[in-house]
């Protein structure tokens, strides 16, 4: 808060003080930093991300390790979260599954951003027929019922090899999620392209590609990054739901969704909660933290919001 006041440069009593010029990025970052809940979200997410990478590496066991003499063991000193029905360590699989779930979220978010920006950017920049066509197309995708459609398409893609399943899931989520972002980007580009700097670009003879992606896009970056963050959270949720139904990431590759799928076996559900409960809690914590960051970013980039 103090820094912000200083940066306003209104210090009649101390005119010799150097006035620091602050760019929009710095303002956003300071606003974000001042938002304690959002920072907490960021810290939690970073910790989770580090944990899912490091914990499986440090535990010194292999994916294929199992012990049929110690199946369905409750949490103990040797296995902090117990073991599953094949005697695999649940803690190890929990963090390994976290890698997959978070990766799906990241890939889906990136795909949404790439598709949304490309389609929205081209539609907004060219206008006319291209705009009409692309927006009709996005309206069609937008009107597809998301969850039922993803489940139906996932059931068609059963032929995909097990180890590629996570990419299919990420791809499906991204392929159905871009229209919202495309609309937002198009709307922004429509107003931006009328501004003077675009005339300058015209005069300098830049190519259309360069005009759209190098000169227009950076202006909608704040919108995109907020959207991408929230999109990532919802992709993690969608993966969990899909894998819970047995149509997403397939075992033996663990993911938070298919670890929760173990709960569909009523014996595991009742008697061995350590096999499915932690996955749900981790998933919840991750999604909450990403959402907190996303909302913090939205407030930070919002010019109306003054802290």
């Amino acid at each position, binding site marked *: 808060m103090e820094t912000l006041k200083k940066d306003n440069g209104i210090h009649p009593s101390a005119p010799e003080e150097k006035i620091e010029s602050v760019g929009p990025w710095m303002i956003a970052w300071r606003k974000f930093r001042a938002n304690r809940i959002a920072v907490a979200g960021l810290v939690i997410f970073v910790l989770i991300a580090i944990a899912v990478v490091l914990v499986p590496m440090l535990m010194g066991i292999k994916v294929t390790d199992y012990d049929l003499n110690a199946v369905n063991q409750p949490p103990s000193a040797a296995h902090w979260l117990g073991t599953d029905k094949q005697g695999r360590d649940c803690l190890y699989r929990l963090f390994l599954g976290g890698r997959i779930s978070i990766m799906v979220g990241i890939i889906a978010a990136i795909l949404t951003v790439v598709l949304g920006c490309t389609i929205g950017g081209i539609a907004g920049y060219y206008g006319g027929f291209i705009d009409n066509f692309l927006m009709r197309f996005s309206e069609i995708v937008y009107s*597809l*019922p998301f969850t039922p459609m993803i489940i139906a398409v996932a*059931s068609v893609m059963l032929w995909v090899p097990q180890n590629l399943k996570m990419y299919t899931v990420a791809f499906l989520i991204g392929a159905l999620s871009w229209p919202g972002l495309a609309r937002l980007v198009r709307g922004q580009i429509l107003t931006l392209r009328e501004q003077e700097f675009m005339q300058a670009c015209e005069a300098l003879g830049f190519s259309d590609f360069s005009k759209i992606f190098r000169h227009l896009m950076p202006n909608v970056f704040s919108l995109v990054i907020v959207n991408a963050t929230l999109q990532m959270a919802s992709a993690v949720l969608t993966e969990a739901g899909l894998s819970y*139904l047995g149509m997403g990431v397939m075992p033996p590759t663990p993911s938070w969704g298919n670890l*929760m799928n173990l709960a569909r076996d009523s014996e595991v*559900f009742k008697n061995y909660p350590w096999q499915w409960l932690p996955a749900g809690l981790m998933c919840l914590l991750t*999604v909450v933290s990403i959402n907190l960051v996303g909302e913090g970013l939205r407030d930070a980039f919002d010019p109306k919001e003054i802290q």
Partner: protein
Amino acid sequence: MLKYIVKRLLTSIPVLLIITMVIFGVVKSMPGDEVSAYLGPGTRATAVIRQQARVKYGLDKPLPEQYVRWLGRTLTGNLGTSTTLRKPVGEVIGSYVWNTFILNAAALIIALIFAIPIGIRQAVKKGSFEDNFWTVFSLLGISVPTFFFGLVLIFFVGLRIDWMPISGMRDTMLANFGYSSIWQEIGDILLHMILPTTVLAFGTFATFSRYVRNSMVEVINQDYIRTARAKGLKEKTVIYRHAFKNALIPLVTLLGMYIPSLFSGATILETVFVWPGIGKVLIDGINQRDSALVCACLVFSAILMILGNLLSDVCYSLVDPRVKVDG
């Protein structure tokens, strides 16, 4: 306005048409043998009978022709027969959709009862501990996987309380031997609704309380609220009579566009609680390759989506005169 709505409805037709193509294509490419689905599970039909069935159901025709036939039938109201439930699909949807509706409607009402007062309090005490608490709480509501929350409720509540049913919509014994009175039936259904409604209401509460809070915050910052306060009105009067009335308008529009979604099932949640709604029927249909049923359910949800989008655009322009609709 009417002109705009009619125009929107007309432009929705080609969109819906393409969506039906996509849905039909997806459903037709689902793995498994469709003829077996028609002939029933574990069929030992000979090749000749299979071929006859194939011809009878038109499965020997090329895909585009099958699509046109299906579309023609669908438009005349004949949605085909569900191969798993052995009933006309129209009848299936017509009955299951109400199960979905009562669940969603109950959740919406409960959510609103809590969301409105809490949202207002948050806006009034913006930035306080209470505000932050509810902000995080409602963020939990939109971040928790619904099925996981359902599983947790079943695990910690359902399995531990004897009289709390954890799945289905009716007690099997009672449903088979007949209820003694309508009240017993209603009571039984209400009992089964407790857990799934709690889960749904949590998510809906989150959406609405955030909405109420944000629109109240916006209104409270307006000049006329300052005027009302300057007149010396009581704070209660200012908040509830002057501010809330105006914050209510966007809330009503949100409710308006929420209506179509009351009929579309929460797919995964209904599966967790074995609630016989549209979402559960859809999943079962997909698992058992019941193509007529899956097609109908998907088209039904697509129509609801389109209606919801249309309603939201209409509502926005009704509320905010600055949003112009070009007729």
